């Protein structure tokens, strides 16, 4: 969007000039004349989302805003709209502003720094000031900015289906407050989502005192807080466990996908990856054991993965517990009730337990070594950690906590933090509703009509309340069943607060006024509570006043408040580990209860086990209307715009179905139809059903937004009951004979033995640190040296002797030579910068494939969504993709490798080749190299021959096959020659205004606001690709140049800025920087032995290199593979072991044959 200069209001002081006597008299005729003079502007005044309106809102946020992180000083507390004419101090027109805020999640929050351009938020990034954050985020947070500008969000106040003014709703709330004051809250019920907001807790306390008869309920369709209940029962008080994965040497997950679908994935990934940052071959590395049913991101990262149905995880946990504490009788009892399934080798459990016990034995020594060791080294991971997932019954969570205690992990990898009183459950609200005890039901956020168990029949149950008041972000399923519906404000529009899972207090501060006048939870609560101060800002400040007293170091309130908003955290507010008593009796009690009540039938072909899972993209459905998330390929299946029923190869074969077949699944009489997807690595006889899809758009009765309308064939909630919320046994599957089209971004899952992702086990890496460079064709050739490829700059500085002469000159050098040969003095022109040469590295050991980077890139670079049909045609526009390969899957003869594959992920984006194949084939010079090593795209010059894409070996270029930014995705194929918009011929509209679009104007204006003004929006017919976030590079360079003045220190210091993907990466797997800066992280990484470039033999000389993946398997485990499966494939199909130095043809005569490598593809055990 173009930056519109702000309207110039009349100066409020100084000399006043009048234009005419009418003006002086302020006659109505004169006012009319003024308006007529600017009809465009005047007409825009009534337009709720016009640019001008935004300028007003923009002004509001400055008033609210003050200066963010990049500026100095703190925000101003006023909450008024100020004209732009009085410019904000520190505000530079066109310069973005940054504000610290946070995105609340269930019971936690993601600390953020949000970027605003002229008052509209355009990008969120993690707040690295937070003690527990590296600035990384998860993919949902990255996508949340799009939901702010979602045209389908609730925009109006509704009473019984009629739009009413906001004041009417407020009056109603006030009336309710009066009414319930009299009745002391009798019949008042609150249904809320989980939240960590201290303000909400404070208001809840206040209201509980005022309305003692009111009842409070919390409902989450996917409750990620089960560990809290287990820990509380073991401690005998309300506590919450807090895990520190970075400290763990051995991690065991019991159906817990901490990387993908648990709470706070970004900090778990950060912790996990930091234990895998192997720089020297001797560096310590953590080991991950994963016991799971569905193939998850955690399973993909695991060194050992045990594939069991989710119902059998309790048996594995019991067997493990018996191994770890053989003397505990209740573990034996549990083991007898739940014996290990036959598919599980007892040795797996035994060796895993031994590894955990070994970590326990070494714990004290390890901690001592850390304490005594040099301070500059990061502490070595010590001890172990056992995590249980949300799908598992309480007993597994109790076992996990008990084993952590037994292994000495409590206090090291597990901290016990004090927690608040949990609210009541939905089932009790149902009882109250059925009993007719509910007069007014206040639903804050939750969408129970969709998500409540189907046996609760919630739509009817809810109707038993006299009034249902709902605060919701969408006019969704619950909207249609509510008497009052209030639009909820986005977190970027509202004042609030939250605690991250470590207890640190973070502010939720707005960057913009609510676009549609939405309210927040705390405002509604304050109104119902009849409080004097109902503004969210005041409430949050009042809460902070209390909180700041608990942190003595914070200083006086005013300064602490300013600092709080500036830093985005209240330093020192994090919770501390409380040594809570451990009650072994509670373990026995939980086990006894499980033995008495829990059943875990082994699934069979006739009685399948259905697993409901939180979708990696849509969560429980709350993000359904977010186009970025819908289009994001599922990190595992790579499916977009759909949910599928995943099952294993064996199950599919036995049931006679294959991927894309539509089947009917019946669970307890309820049926759904959905497409099947054969998922390697899934446990047999289980069906994975993702929640949150299969919803309908209905403007009248409420439903999902238009983006998510009819996305996915089935709605898993339709078969989910309160008896089997996550694991439903006894399901039947029937083939319907139909098939269903599914759009995936990656159709081929095998690497075909190509050395694209290179990996080694830890011990191989220790012996052969340079293994990655012994692979692919260049390992056999003289032309490309086996040591690292020199960049032209390195060649200039280090000399070319390390590198044999090429047949073809690198274009850089060739040009330099021609220059001198021509005898033309071009020395005043700098063709190759000796200041900055940019490079990127991706650490494949640390990357877990969470895809936060993909969404961050989409948000930063204005990447459009293209819809399911276009994705099916391989036209997705993501500049960055994550390739996922199953290794072992190519060998059809070895079916067990399809069932238990290893998987690797590889972020793939423009490699910025120095010797770029795309550049030499472009006929119009639209893609060229800049002097800092970037392969740049001149969109304006591109005519769209697509030759560059054909010649790109990485296929990372993206083509605008249609005007994706100007048409709704269902109208891409509509030609303007024969179509009309608003009764006007589209060709004529285009003739009158080439910028015309067939998206309704208001919606289009809203959509435009999400775009980053620093990145151009591409039209159809042009190629685009990753730019290394050139806008960030240039902005950093300019700032540095301004700062350098005459000193000449124009080199941007390392770490000054980050690319969007690097910034979003919670694992720190992506490093970007200046190769010429010897101090930079990237320069250090380039010297690592396992740094390699993909398809190096083509001599493309990419500026993106990869650090080969290291696995850390336990040689004693039955599923130990001596050679990683994809290396085995490479080995079998190509020549030579990567773990031996390759002899050059010239050397072979004298030197002995290559060092003997481990036997080809040999694996231990019968697995």
């Amino acid at each position, binding site marked *: 969007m173009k930056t519109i200069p702000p309207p110039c209001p009349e100066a409020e002081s100084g000399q006043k000039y009048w234009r005419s006597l009418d003006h002086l008299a302020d006659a109505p005729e004169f006012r009319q004349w003024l308006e007529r003079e600017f009809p465009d502007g005047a007409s825009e005044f009534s337009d709720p989302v016009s640019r001008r309106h935004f300028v007003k809102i923009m002004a509001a946020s400055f008033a609210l805003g003050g200066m963010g992180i990049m500026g100095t000083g703190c925000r101003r507390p006023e909450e008024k709209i100020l004209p732009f004419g009085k410019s904000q101090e520190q505000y530079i027109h066109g310069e973005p502003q940054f504000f610290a805020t946070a995105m609340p999640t269930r019971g936690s929050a993601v600390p953020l720094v949000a970027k605003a351009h002229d008052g509209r938020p355009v990008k969120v990034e993690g707040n690295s000031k937070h003690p527990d954050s590296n600035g990384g985020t998860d993919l949902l947070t990255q996508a949340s900015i799009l939901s702010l500008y979602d045209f389908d969000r609730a925009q109006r106040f509704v009473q019984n289906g009629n739009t009413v003014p906001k004041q009417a709703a407020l009056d109603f709330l006030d009336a309710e407050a009066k009414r319930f004051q009299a009745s002391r809250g009798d019949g008042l019920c609150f249904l809320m989502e989980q939240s960590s907001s201290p303000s909400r807790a404070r208001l809840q306390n206040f209201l509980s005192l005022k309305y003692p008869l009111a009842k409070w309920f919390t409902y989450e369709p996917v409750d990620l807080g089960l560990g809290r209940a287990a820990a509380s029962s073991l401690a005998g008080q309300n506590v919450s466990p807090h895990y520190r994965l970075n400290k763990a040497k051995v991690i065991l997950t019991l159906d817990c996908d901490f990387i993908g679908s648990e709470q706070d994935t970004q900090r778990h990934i950060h912790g996990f990856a930091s234990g895998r940052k192997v720089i020297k071959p001797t560096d310590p590395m953590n080991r991950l054991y994963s016991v799971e049913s569905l193939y998850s991101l955690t399973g993909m990262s695991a060194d050992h993965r045990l594939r069991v149905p989710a119902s059998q995880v309790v048996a594995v946990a019991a067997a493990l517990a018996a191994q770890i504490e053989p003397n505990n009788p209740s573990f034996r009892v549990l083991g007898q009730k739940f014996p290990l399934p036959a598919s599980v080798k007892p040795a797996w459990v035994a060796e895993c337990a031994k590894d955990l016990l070994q970590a326990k034995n070494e714990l004290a020594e390890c901690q001592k070594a850390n304490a005594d060791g040099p301070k500059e080294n990061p502490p070595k991971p010590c001890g172990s950690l056992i995590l249980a997932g949300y799908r598992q019954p309480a007993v597994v969570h109790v076992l996990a906590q008990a084993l952590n205690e037994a292994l000495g992990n409590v206090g090291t990898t597990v901290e016990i933090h004090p927690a608040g009183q949990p609210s009541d459950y939905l089932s009790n609200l149902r009882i109250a509703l059925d009993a007719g005890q509910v007069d007014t039901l206040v639903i804050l956020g939750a969408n129970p009509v969709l998500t409540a168990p189907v046996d609760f029949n919630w739509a009817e149950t809810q109707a038993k309340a006299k009034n249902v008041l709902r605060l919701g972000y969408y006019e969704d399923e619950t909207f249609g069943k509510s008497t009052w519906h209030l639009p909820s404000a986005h977190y970027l529009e509202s004042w609030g607060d939250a605690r991250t899972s470590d207890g640190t207090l973070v502010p939720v501060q707005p960057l913009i006024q609510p676009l549609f006048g939405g309210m927040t939870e705390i405002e509604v609560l304050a109104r119902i509570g009849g409080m004097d101060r109902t503004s969210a800002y005041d409430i949050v400040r009042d809460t902070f006043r209390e909180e700041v007293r608990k942190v003595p170091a914070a200083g006086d309130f005013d300064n602490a408040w300013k600092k709080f908003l500036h830093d985005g955290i209240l330093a020192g507010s994090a919770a501390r580990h409380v040594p809570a008593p451990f009650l072994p009796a509670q373990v026995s009690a939980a086990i006894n209860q499980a033995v008495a009540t829990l059943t875990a039938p082994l699934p069979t072909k006739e009685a399948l086990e259905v697993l409901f899972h939180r979708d990696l993209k849509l969560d429980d459905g709350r993000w359904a209307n977010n186009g970025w998330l819908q289009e994001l390929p599922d990190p595992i299946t790579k499916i977009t715009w759909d949910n599928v029923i995943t099952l294993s190869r064996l199950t599919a074969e036995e049931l006679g179905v294959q991927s894309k077949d539509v089947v009917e699944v019946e669970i307890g009489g309820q049926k759904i139809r959905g497409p099947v997807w054969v998922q390697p690595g899934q446990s047999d006889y289980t069906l994975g059903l993702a929640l949150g899809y299969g919803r309908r758009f209905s403007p009248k009765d409420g439903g999902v937004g238009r983006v998510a309308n009819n996305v996915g064939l089935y709605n898993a909630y339709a078969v989910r009951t309160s008896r089997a919320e996550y694991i439903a046994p006894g399901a039947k599957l029937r083939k319907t004979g139909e098939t269903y089209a599914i759009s995936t971004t990656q*159709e081929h899952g*095998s690497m075909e033995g*190509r050395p694209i992702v290179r990996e080694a086990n830890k011990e191989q890496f220790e012996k052969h640190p340079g293994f990655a460079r012994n692979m692919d064709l260049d390992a056999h050739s003289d032309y490309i040296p086996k040591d690292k490829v020199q960049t032209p700059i390195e060649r200039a500085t280090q000399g070319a002797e390390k590198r044999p002469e090429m047949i073809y000159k690198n274009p850089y050098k060739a040009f330099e030579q021609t220059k001198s040969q021509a005898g033309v003095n071009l020395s005043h022109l700098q063709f190759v910068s000796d200041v900055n040469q940019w490079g990127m590295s991706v650490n494949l050991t640390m990357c877990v494939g969470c895809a936060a980077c993909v969404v961050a890139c989409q948000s930063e670079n204005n990447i459009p969504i293209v819809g399911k049909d276009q994705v099916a045609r391989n036209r997705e526009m993501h500049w960055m993709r994550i390739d996922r390969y199953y290794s072992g899957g190519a060998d059809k003869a070895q079916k067990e490798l399809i069932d238990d594959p290893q998987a690797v992920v590889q972020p793939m984006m423009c490699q910025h080749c120095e010797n770029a194949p795309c550049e030499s084939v472009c006929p119009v010079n639209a893609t060229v190299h800049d002097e800092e090593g970037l392969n740049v795209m001149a969109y304006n010059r591109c005519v769209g021959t*697509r*030759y560059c894409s054909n010649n790109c070996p990485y296929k990372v270029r993206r083509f605008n096959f*249609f005007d994706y930014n100007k048409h709704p995705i269902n109208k891409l194929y509509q030609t303007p020659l024969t179509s009309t918009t608003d009764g006007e011929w589209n060709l004529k509209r285009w003739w009158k205004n080439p910028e015309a679009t067939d998206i309704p104007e208001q919606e289009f204006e809203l959509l435009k606001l999400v775009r980053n003004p620093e990145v151009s929006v591409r039209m159809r017919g042009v190629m685009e690709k990753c730019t290394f976030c050139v806008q960030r590079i240039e902005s950093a360079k300019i700032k540095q140049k301004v700062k350098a003045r005459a000193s000449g220190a124009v080199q941007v210091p390392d770490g000054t800025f980050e690319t969007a993907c690097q910034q979003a990466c919670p694992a720190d797997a992506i490093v970007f920087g200046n190769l010429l800066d010897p101090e930079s992280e990237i320069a250090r990484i380039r010297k690592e032995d396992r740094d390699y470039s993909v398809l190096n033999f083509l001599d493309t000389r990419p500026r993106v290199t990869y650090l080969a993946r290291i696995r850390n398997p336990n040689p004693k485990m039955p599923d130990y593979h001596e050679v990683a499966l994809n290396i085995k494939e490479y080995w079998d199909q190509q020549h030579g072991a990567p773990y031996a130095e390759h002899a050059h043809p010239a050397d072979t005569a004298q030197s002995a044959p290559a060092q003997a490598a481990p036997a080809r593809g040999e694996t231990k055990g019968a697995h």
Partner: protein
Amino acid sequence: MAEHLIHTIPSMPRVPKELERQPLVLHQRGFASITDAVAGIAEGKTPKWWWALFVPSVLLTGVCFAMIAYLISTGVGVWGLMIPVAWAWDITNFVFWIGIGHAGTLISAILFLLRQKWRTSINRAAEAMTIFAVMCAGIFPLIHVGRVWFAWWLFPLPNSNSIWPQFRSPLLWDVFAVSTYFTVSLLFWYMGLIPDLATLRDRAKTKIRQFCYGLFSLGWTGSNRHWSNYEKAYLLLAGLSTPLVLSVHSIVSFDFAVSQVPGWHTTIFPPYFVAGAIFSGFGMVLTLLIPLRSICHLEDIITTRHVELMGKVVLATGSIVGYAYGMEFFIAWYGGNPYELYAFKNRAFGPYWWAYWTMVSCNVICPQLFWFKKVRTSMVAVFIISIFVNIGMWFERFVIIVTSLHRDYLPANWAYFSPTFVDIWTFIGTFGLFLTLFLLFLRFLPLIAISEVKGVTPQADAHSPLGGAKHH
């Protein structure tokens, strides 16, 4: 052989029957009868068969342009191409039509320089075919770009941005190669037409015809001086065209050979493409002329022997193409590059195996039937095989382009291409355009070089009225 003369001149040596060569014009057609036969097609009443072909052709042309209008107004996405297969039917069709355009200039220039007199009966139609085929070919690179309105940036024209095209790009070489080829072919064709246009002018009955033919025959009177200049110019243009025949398709093949896509990056491409182009060009000439000679009663001028000779060319070039297919596989294996080897294995046994084997059957196996004289001289058989050659050569380009792109280096990118109706109808539409132009040519211009054919009849040679080696 001129049998009536043998009886009248007893000293004439008798040649054994099997050694006799067929004359190039049968049945001792006189000059006048040749003129009548050829000019008559352009002068007579429009025959019904012409309308029967012309109306559908024009409709198809309309479809073609409607599809192009849809494409340009909406976006390249209306085609089936995508990433990784960013070129598909567009460039396939381009190379297909360009290849067809090879026969005309080869016949008119190279065979002229090689003194192959049999060319005279077919060169005019073949040249016309070349020009129309190149026009059809030219459509595709133009419309395949994402922003057609900027396609002129490929030309080295001064512009306000002072940006030159990128001279390293084979696409730019294509622009020069194809436009040069088209220009020279057009000039060559028009040059050859001048004496015949004068003939038509002289025979014209209506004012309009007199004016039009008169205008384009450039005042030709048939004087010795005219003929002398004409033949010199013809020879020069033939010399100019000859390298172009080789260069155009070599340069088109550089589009692929210069890239580094496995399956494209092959040094064999230039000769292989040229041979393939001649192969497909002759295939199309046969497809057009076999029905034409019978409909227009030109069997005496385009004789069985002409067809047979063209069949031999098809056999030779088809075999070269077959050899190239084999050699590609050999080098892929011998080169030791696993990516390259995979590309070729994938061609033959991957998801597009059907396209590959269609290509091999049509291009390698079918033409081998031309080893048999019976097949070569059977008009029906030759016609059918020529159709197969056309199909096969379209598939050759499809196989090269699509199967190489759809599975290249990183398996994560692999995908399967399918065309949309727009792809299909645009291509079919170009046949409409081609036929429309060709039918107009038939109707208004002499489809056989009258003056040249007359020159190769026995009676044109005063020294050897019975015909001699030079007439064959």
